[in-house]
């Protein structure tokens, strides 16, 4: 019950931030946390994942960069290809930005081996050092999805065995959540790309 309530609050905060005027600095999304008595913006928790190149990435290796994240699985017959098409659109627009990366997390590590992820990335024809296809164990990726506010469940009734949302999340160089959009809706991705642009400007001026 408490859990449901907190999800409602988080969702409400996320939705409210959508309508913020564009000229302002991007908002910090998620619930504030108390660390040693000091209020801090929500951060993505510690992660350590293996990519399609069999190299490890973690919060620290990502941290000079900003990145967008999504959750998918290769055999997903429902929303995933649509979301990937939008991720590809984002990739194409920011391909030449050295401080911009993408992470697609597989929700189905049993079937999506590193080798299959590599093949998948090659079929998308994207740079392996810009767009990571990341894998960890089942429980960890489910928890990680929640920490990105993506609902994901193992559901044998759902197409492909998983039920999940197609959100694309924007994370800044310090691990804060700064924006999101619905990857299934191209119209929501357009303003989201402006948010990415704004965040890139923000980190450039900060250096």
């Amino acid at each position, binding site marked *: 019950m408490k859990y449901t309530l907190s999800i409602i609050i988080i969702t409400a905060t996320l939705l409210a931030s959508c309508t913020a005027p564009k000229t302002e600095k991007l908002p910090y999304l998620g619930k504030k946390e108390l660390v040693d008595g000091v209020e801090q913006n929500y951060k993505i928790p510690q992660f350590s994942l293996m990519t399609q190149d069999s190299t490890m990435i973690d919060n620290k290796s990502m941290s000079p960069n900003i990145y967008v994240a999504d959750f998918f699985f290769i*055999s997903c*017959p*429902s*929303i*995933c*290809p*649509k979301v*990937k*098409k939008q991720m*590809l659109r984002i990739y194409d627009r920011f391909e030449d930005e050295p401080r911009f990366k993408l992470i697609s997390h597989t929700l189905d590590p049993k079937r999506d081996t590193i080798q299959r992820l590599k093949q*998948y990335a*090659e*079929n*998308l*024809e994207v740079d392996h050092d810009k767009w990571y296809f990341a894998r960890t164990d089942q429980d960890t990726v489910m928890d990680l999805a929640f920490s990105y506010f993506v609902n994901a469940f193992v559901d044998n009734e759902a197409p492909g065995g998983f039920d999940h949302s197609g959100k694309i999340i924007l994370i800044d160089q310090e691990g804060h959540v700064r924006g999101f959009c619905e990857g299934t809706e191209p119209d929501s991705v357009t303003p989201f790309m402006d948010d990415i642009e704004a965040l890139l400007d923000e980190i450039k001026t900060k250096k």
Partner: protein
Amino acid sequence: MCYFCSCETGTYVQGKTLYEFHCESCHMADGSGLAKLIPPLQSDYYDDNYDKLSCIIRNGLNERIIVNGKPYEQEMPYNLGLSDFEIVNIINYMDNVLLKKDRYKSLQSVRDELAGCSY
């Protein structure tokens, strides 16, 4: 008044709805597909296999195919639940609205194709 309504020749209402529900997630609203993972509908393969479309839609496809010069080998799922009638509406929607081919497949030719599917 509305002789052709049952075949959706004018507006392709049923074909559009079915396409959105069964095909769009992979082939995209405009039929463009996704890189080397999902083939575009605007293709040489589509035209060359025009008389096999009914079989592809009903039974799916799981073989290496070359579409517009690129290889594809992901699996397309089957749609056993679609009736002959629904298949004809999907094909005519794709042909006329997405691909602007201005050609029309009849229910009878879909039935003939389905009777002869090789798998």
